């Protein structure tokens, strides 16, 4: 069965020639992918990144931006590998939210 990411050959509208300068947070997501993939760490394989992006489901392609999908897939890979735990990630997100509110 064709999955949602497998869109080659499907009908679609005109190519909108959009471009944007990547924001720092997007470049940092990219940097995380590069660093985790480096042989001395070997904590992220390109296949894992893709599998975890595809596992986000069809709606992710419509509702999430490119690097939003990437950071989600990177976080999920690290959870699956046990590099991070859901607990510590949740605590960290709460801490960041509190920092933001305090600013």
């Amino acid at each position, binding site marked *: 069965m064709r999955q949602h990411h497998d869109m080659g050959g499907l009908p679609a509208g005109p190519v909108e020639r959009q471009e*944007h300068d990547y924001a720092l947070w997007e470049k940092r997501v990219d940097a995380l992918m590069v660093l985790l993939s480096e042989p001395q760490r070997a904590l992220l394989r390109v296949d894992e990144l893709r599998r975890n992006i595809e596992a986000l489901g069809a709606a992710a392609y419509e509702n999430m931006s490119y690097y939003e999908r990437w950071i989600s897939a990177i976080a999920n890979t690290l959870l699956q590998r046990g590099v991070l735990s859901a607990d510590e990630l949740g605590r960290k997100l709460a801490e960041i939210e509190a920092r933001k509110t305090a600013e």
Partner: protein
Amino acid sequence: MTDIHHLHPHPHPTAPDRDGPQGYYQALEIAVRELLIGKGIISADDVRRAVEAMDARTPAQGARVVARAWTNPGYKARLLADGTAAVRELGIEMATTRLIVVENAPALHNLVVCTLCSCYPRMVLGLPPDWYKSRAYRSRAVREPRAVLREFGTELPEAVELRVHDSTADMRYLVLPERPPGTEGWSEERLAALVTRDSMIGVTRCRA
């Protein structure tokens, strides 16, 4: 607090990649990065260096490769035989990916896409434009490539063969565009200035 949006008054592109105020995914990036730094898996310096290295990769690198191939037949032969090794001669490392260079000719045009995701020769050209990652481009480049080329202003006569290359995670394609007529005797630097990113993806041609 300074609103950064007031500092750059140009209109924001309505790209799918949002860079607005900090939302959930930006927080997720901070969380993952800080946890990895806390565990000593990466350092803040590693992240900064990786961002700088990616910023330094631009289509100008690919343009140097193309201009060298246009002016040096030996280099061109090596580039077409083994792209990965030939770009290394110019200081470009492909890391874990393999580079395959496909040459345009009067009767042959090449176009690059990644239908399954967004694989792109990023070590040579830098990060891809948004449209390369778009549903429309990924879907249609393999189904009606001539129509897609027309949308980029490239009219390809029916007599010209068109090959579409679907990239994979491990194999990245770079188009070697045709050298424009009237550029005989030009220096490599002058030629490199003619080579656009889009011509190396194959959606346009180089013009003098």
